[in-house]
């Protein structure tokens, strides 16, 4: 029994339109973000993972289970989709309650679990109102509640923070982190890169239906050879430090930080640079910190995909 979400040479075509092509992935527990512009294949990948669409080619397994067996799959998978339509006439409570009843849960348990879930997403006050009368943020939260209701091991969330106010966003992010800390698999797609950067344990970068990169963001960054690594050094005498650093052959560019108290430099080999830094005699220059400046999702995204449709 595999403990990963596995895609093996998966392709999906909608007629002649490419959804995703030749995707090979092995997703571990933790928060994994799918990042890419519109039409890059994020939702298709999520729909494939949850069996809502079937692959044209290849094999998908979620923790050892095939995706064409919803009866077993959705016992441990919860999916909050981007589809903004709900069964007609249901209140928020009925929406979750019906979902749990469909799962075969006894009615009393379903009612209790429904209230607990609604409480988790702070929707108690609106639970008796029709979903059709909800705001966008409320609809987003009730969809999240549906995905969370049965405490799934795998949470697939398509743009889960869309439409949420800042407070709700931070609450939801805390919820995702708590789930990940418990060993859950949280798969999130998002346009909002700074949020992805903050919450993700690993990222999958998609472009035009292809997986461009995957893994922990730092290791993805280190594999991008054509863009030198940027390092920010906080110090009191940046000009002197720059002169010294140019003695090392690993430094290819250096510039003084806007506030005058730091140095932004570019190197082709970060590991060798750090070693060289250790060997440098700094002549009394006070170095406060040394940190990579472009090993975040935003930089990786820009290097690999470009800056189309990025929300910073």
């Amino acid at each position, binding site marked *: 029994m595999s403990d990963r979400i596995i895609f093996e040479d998966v392709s999906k075509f*909608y*007629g002649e339109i490419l959804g995703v092509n030749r995707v090979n992935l092995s997703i571990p527990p933790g928060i994994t973000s799918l990042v890419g512009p519109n039409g890059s294949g994020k939702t298709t990948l999520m*729909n494939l993972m*949850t*069996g*809502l*669409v*079937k692959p044209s080619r290849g094999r998908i397994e979620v923790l050892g289970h095939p995706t*064409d067996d*919803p*009866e*077993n*799959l*959705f*016992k441990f998978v*919860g*999916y909050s*989709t981007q*589809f*903004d*339509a*709900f*069964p*007609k*006439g249901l209140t928020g409570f009925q929406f979750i309650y*019906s*979902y749990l*009843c*469909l*799962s*075969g849960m*006894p009615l009393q348990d379903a009612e209790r679990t429904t209230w607990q879930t609604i409480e988790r997403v702070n929707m108690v006050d609106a639970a008796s109102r029709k979903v059709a009368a909800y705001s966008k943020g409320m609809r987003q939260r009730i969809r999240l509640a*549906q995905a969370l209701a*049965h405490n799934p091991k795998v949470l697939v969330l398509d743009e889960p923070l869309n439409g949420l106010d800042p407070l709700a966003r931070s609450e939801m992010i805390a919820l995702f982190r708590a789930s990940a800390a418990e060993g859950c698999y949280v798969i999130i797609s998002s346009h909002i890169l700074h949020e992805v950067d903050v919450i993700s344990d690993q990222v999958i970068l998609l472009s035009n239906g292809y997986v461009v990169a995957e893994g922990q963001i730092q290791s993805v960054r280190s594999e991008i050879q054509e863009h030198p690594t940027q390092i920010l050094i906080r110090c009191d005498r940046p000009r002197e430090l720059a002169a010294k650093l140019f003695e090392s052959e690993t430094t290819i560019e250096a510039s003084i930080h806007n506030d005058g108290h730091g140095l932004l430099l570019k190197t082709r080999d970060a590991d060798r640079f750090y070693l060289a830094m250790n060997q440098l005699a700094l002549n009394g220059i006070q170095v406060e910190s040394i940190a990579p400046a472009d090993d975040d999702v935003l930089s990786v995204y820009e290097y690999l995909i470009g800056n189309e449709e990025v929300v910073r």
Partner: protein
Amino acid sequence: MTRLWWTQIKAVIRLELKKTFFAKRGLWIYVVAALPVLLFIAYAVAMSHEQHRTTEIAREGERRLAYQDLLAIKPGMTKQEVTAVLGKPPLVFHWTERRPTGPNSTEEILHEDLHYSDGQNDLYLGLANGKVQSINIHEGYNLGEDAVMFAGVFQFFFLRLAIFFGCLGIFMNLFRGEVLDRSLHFYFLAPIRREVLMAGKFLAGLLATCTIFITSELLQTVAFLWHFNPQARDLYLYHNHGLEHAAVYVGVTFLACVGYGAFFLVAGMLFRNPIIPAAAVLIWEGINPFLPALLKQFSVIYYLKSLCPVEIPVSPGTPGLFALLISNADPVSPPLAIIGILVVALLALFVSSIQVRRMEINYTTE
């Protein structure tokens, strides 16, 4: 496992029934189901009015007459002889006709129309110069004729149109409607076998159509029997197989919902436009009498017609093609007909179960 499936089926039924019964786009189904009821109510009102008139005529007559008295009048009897048997007529119309007998001569004929009633049946007598020339008895209750009329409405309107289109409206929308509303993923995200979901939706559709059309059928029977007096009602229900017929009509209605429901459930999964399968099935059911024996069996109406309790007589002047539509030249026995419908329905449900497993959520292509 079976218990879990049954729990899930009940959950699907609860959700679907609410949607089916109160859907705005399904209101026309209630109208279609109510049409034959309204027809029979109108018929009953007309017949009640007629009976009231007949009773009034009987009351105005000189004597209380029995049906046998009306039958006693024969052509050629004089007015005095008629009056001796039936008394003074409550309604008389007379007029004079001048008929030419030669180039310059005419004959004057006195015509009289006498109208008697025993309170239920009317007797119309046409007299010429004091002698009975024509006798016309109009029976207030003609159970045989009324039963045939009921059978005609049932077979040609209720079965072929009302139930047919009602099932189309309800069963086609079970999946197609949710695809159009973009809400089918709600079900597909639940840990429920697609076949169990399909079974739940089918049973919900069946429950809805049966409730609507069996209620309509029962109301039609009530409306149909409304104008009968208690004796005639008892005669029809208990001695003329009326009760049995009513039960059979309910059974046929149920089987029609099963057969057409299964057909339209699968059609809703296979076709985006309901007009295409509806037209195809309507034509297929329509041409059933002209099909070879083997192909006839793949039709719902073939079995339903065999189960209908009252055969509609084909009058001698009926055109050949129409006569073929009315008559069931090759009926099957009731057990075989029931099995036939169930087999056709099971076949359709089997195709549905394959189709539902293949279904994908891809609203953008709809």
